[in-house]
């Protein structure tokens, strides 16, 4: 496929409500500015695609991200990441998935490197849902989910 190869990072941020434990990402874009998400729809353009290599989660929610979690990612109608527990990479408790686990990993931020490439093709809807075990979330806190990897973006080339 023609296009400019690149490193791509897409993210979506949601504002929480008290007691909320389930969150949906890449589904609602209305009312969000470009710092809260860098997409306007939950699919990539016709000339764009990407491979998810790592998952980033950050939030200022009260209990932090150290409790168990369930992350599901769906591309099209296919679940590509199922009931994935991100919490093992939060903080330094000796159970991270990665051999080189940063000492800076805290209670509010974590990243997980995937073992397999997950492709988001052009113009296919995708979404993510996250369930947290701990539900003491206060009003108007934020939770951001990001996917990082490589991909292609539009390149005019000699088409025009």
């Amino acid at each position, binding site marked *: 496929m023609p296009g400019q190869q690149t490193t791509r990072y897409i993210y979506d941020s949601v504002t929480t409500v008290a007691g909320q434990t389930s969150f949906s990402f890449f589904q609602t874009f209305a009312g969000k500015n470009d710092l809260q998400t860098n997409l306007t729809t939950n699919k990539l353009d016709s000339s764009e695609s990407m491979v998810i290599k790592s998952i980033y989660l950050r939030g200022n929610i009260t209990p932090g991200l*150290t*409790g*168990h979690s*369930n992350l599901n990612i769906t591309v099209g109608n*296919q*679940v*590509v*990441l*199922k*009931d*994935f*527990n991100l*919490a*093992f990479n939060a*903080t*330094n*408790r*000796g*159970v*991270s*998935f990665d*051999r*080189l*686990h*940063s*000492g*800076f*990993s805290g209670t509010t931020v974590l990243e997980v490197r*995937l*073992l*397999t*490439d*997950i492709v988001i093709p052009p113009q296919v809807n995708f979404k993510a849902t996250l*369930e947290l*075990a*701990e539900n003491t979330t206060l009003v108007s806190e934020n939770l951001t989910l990001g996917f990082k990897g490589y991909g292609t973006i539009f390149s005019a080339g000699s088409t025009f």
Partner: protein
Amino acid sequence: MPARNIKGNVQAQDKILYVANKLGLSSLKYMQATTRVVYDQSTTAATQHTLFEGAAARSFPLTNLGANGNQFQVDEALLVEKIAFFIPDAADGENFTGNTNRSFKFDLIIGNKTVMKDVVVEAGGQQAFYTDGTAASLVIDLEGVGILIPPQVEFKIQAKLMNSSTREAVSERVGCYLFGTGVLLNFNTSI
């Protein structure tokens, strides 16, 4: 092909397909590859625990196995590449702690076969491999490529806790995860 011939530079997905072929799982190669972690917790303090067995009766956050419990559904599998133990901090199983002085002796049993026997995850025992912040690692990397849990076969872990220094039995809660390359069901046809 003898097992020794699949060592070397074989990749995780190669091993999944090799074992699937041996087991006659001809459709597994058409399924969705993924990264997967399954975990289970025993939140009543004891010196010995059986994990994953009976997980269908538990729900999140005690486990993420769901209604199928300790067996994967049709055309789902997990190549176990890392195993780690942790200690739930309360009976609700919502969170857990790290530790520096607990070792976990365990057997991994798949179907009727013990595939890992009397293995110990020592506190800090993988310092040569893991730089996990400032914490002592409680993860064991499986040598070679890993061990495949095929679809629809029950698996469990039998574990004992001990004090890493004194080698005395310890009564505490225990949690465990199995992490590696996974396979998810993908209907490649219209149904």
